[in-house]
């Protein structure tokens, strides 16, 4: 019955080791899908390469369906899974700053490490930037800790907030995602760009 470590089926150290293995899988898939290339990542914002859209939403749907079905079969206890908390203000402001970082730098933390691992110097520099950014946040914490902590709404689920059941929301998301994929593929045909 999952999650394994929280039900004491595996030890904490095994958990850390498996984290390493999972990370290998994560990095491998990311790089195989082309996420080590900042140009491909930025492509979704200009239409010429919607790999981000496709991989991201397919992964979200797969994992979501997986979790819901596992719960249905009694293989996992969804009450124990970590659900990201919602701090309304900092979620939005942080997201905006990250969005700017994304379009300027062309990477996000996971993909930058991926890019760095195959030798992309811009990836390495992005990672350095990440450290600096976190350091700045930490050093000046008292300046924005108020912003960081306000509007704590707990850990609501989207389905709860919309008043739908998890399953219905999952179906909705699948349909929306497929629609987005269709638009994405149309955009790729309309705005092709050469690789460099």
């Amino acid at each position: 019955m999952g999650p394994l470590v929280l039900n004491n089926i595996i030890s904490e150290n095994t958990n850390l080791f498996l984290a390493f293995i999972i990370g290998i899988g994560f990095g491998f898939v990311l790089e195989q899908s082309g996420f080590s290339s900042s140009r491909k990542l930025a492509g979704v914002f200009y239409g010429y390469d919607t790999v981000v859209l496709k991989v991201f939403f397919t992964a979200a749907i797969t994992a979501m369906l997986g979790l819901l079905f596992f719960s249905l079969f009694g293989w996992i206890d969804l009450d124990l899974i970590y659900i990201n908390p919602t701090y309304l203000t900092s979620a939005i402001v942080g997201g905006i700053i990250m969005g700017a970082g994304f379009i300027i730098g062309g990477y996000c933390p996971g993909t930058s490490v991926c890019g760095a691992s195959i030798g992309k110097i811009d990836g390495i520099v992005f990672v350095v930037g990440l450290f600096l950014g976190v350091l700045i946040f930490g050093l000046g914490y008292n300046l924005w800790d108020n912003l960081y902590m306000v509007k704590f709404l707990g850990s609501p689920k989207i389905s709860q907030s919309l008043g739908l059941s998890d399953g219905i929301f999952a179906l909705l998301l699948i349909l929306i995602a497929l629609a987005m994929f269709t638009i994405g593929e149309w955009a790729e045909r309309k705005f092709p760009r050469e690789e460099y």
Partner: protein
Amino acid sequence: MKPRVLLALFTIPLGLIIAAVPQNKTKPYRLTADQLLEEVNTRTQYITPEDVADMIVNKDPSLRLIDVRSQEEFEKYSLQGAINIPLSDLLSDKYTDILNQDVKMNVFYSNGTVQSNEAWMITRQLGYTNNYVLEGGVNYWFDAILNPQKPATANSDEEFAKYDFRKSAGQALGGGMAVQFNDNQSASAAAKPVIKAAPKKKKASGGC
């Protein structure tokens, strides 16, 4: 066939199934039968009426009395400050936060001890801690606290101490008058159950 179409063919039926099937709300048991039997044999779940009376009189904020009888019985008579969670509703979602926590001491009580023990066993198997059973229930409460019998003169000091305490507590709880405690009371209040600082109820951490 285009991958996207293939994906759609796969995910839409799955999505339909998951949308249609009701969620699995079963709560898994955390304790094995052996573990539960061991706890039952050592009677760790009991708390004496004297201890509860003491906590009420001292206005101990960590106490939370839970009446597991039906609503009518609760409205007819209930212990001071108790809330009503009928046994039939015990597993309802709205009570999970009250039953599964490590801040307050929940004490189940019913007329005797059958129903309160039932409540305790169920919640214990789900892994909840800090739930206790009031020894003797309401019936014993009446006899022991509210109408204590004066012990015969030949009995030990301890019996007298108990009697004094019960009388004072009974007065405080029955009539709301100012309480007079004599020093002997401390002897009976000795073995007060401690709130278990939740034995590492494992919570997933995550983020970023």
